[in-house]
């Protein structure tokens, strides 16, 4: 029975080629993470900006951002153990961007949410330090966004 986890990150959108919010397999991966939901919205003073988000695979753990692990990746059921995943928000280096799995462009004022049907999730490779992340491939200015990601493992 898979366990579900979630992570959120609020930060200024930065690099187009490094993940804004991503999770990846640890050094000893145990299961393929299956991303079943992600979303984007803006809490602080949204304005008329547009962002093109992509969801991509990546190889190599990202660096330079806010590290998210353990209690920062809480289970949706509080009785479950901590996630095996490692995460980062606002990365600035190291992750090698791979295949694109989704793309959407939305206004900063809008709230976007995507949910996969069962068995149709975005599947992470069972490979050390490989992951899936949300990238801000285009942004019309400098502004902060709230992103979240949920997955089974």
């Amino acid at each position: 029975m898979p366990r579900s986890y979630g992570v959120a990150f609020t930060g200024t959108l930065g690099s187009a080629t490094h993940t804004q919010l991503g999770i990846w397999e640890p050094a000893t991966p145990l299961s393929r993470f299956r991303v079943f939901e992600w979303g984007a919205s803006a809490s602080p003073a949204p304005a008329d900006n547009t962002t093109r988000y992509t969801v991509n695979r990546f190889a190599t753990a990202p660096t330079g951002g806010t590290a998210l692990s353990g209690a920062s990746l809480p289970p949706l059921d509080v009785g479950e153990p901590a996630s095996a995943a490692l995460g980062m928000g606002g990365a600035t280096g190291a992750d090698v961007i791979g295949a694109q799995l989704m793309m959407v462009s939305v206004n900063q004022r809008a709230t976007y949410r995507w949910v996969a049907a069962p068995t149709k999730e975005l599947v992470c490779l069972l490979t050390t330090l490989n992951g899936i992340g949300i990238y801000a491939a285009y942004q019309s200015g400098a502004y902060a966004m709230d992103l979240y990601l949920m997955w089974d493992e």
Partner: protein
Amino acid sequence: MSDEYANREAVRKPHGNFSIIDPLFSSPIEGDTLRCCHCGAHWVPVKGSGRQRGFCMKCMDVTCGSHRCIECLPHDKMLDLMEKNSSLLIRV
């Protein structure tokens, strides 16, 4: 609303759903996504988009239409191959 989302198509068995709540519109924009049975990418089916999608007769499921997904390589098999050879990560 962009033309793309205005012409989005509802499908009988969606592989995902999205919603966009935009204060410019009185009601949420909701739609379906489909997943390529080979590469695993999701897209929004849009009527008249001009994008050519495909259908795999072995998997009996839709494909994204990209060249790399013309030949049948089921998604699970592709993940197995990528796990054995991570250099495929960029290409597949």
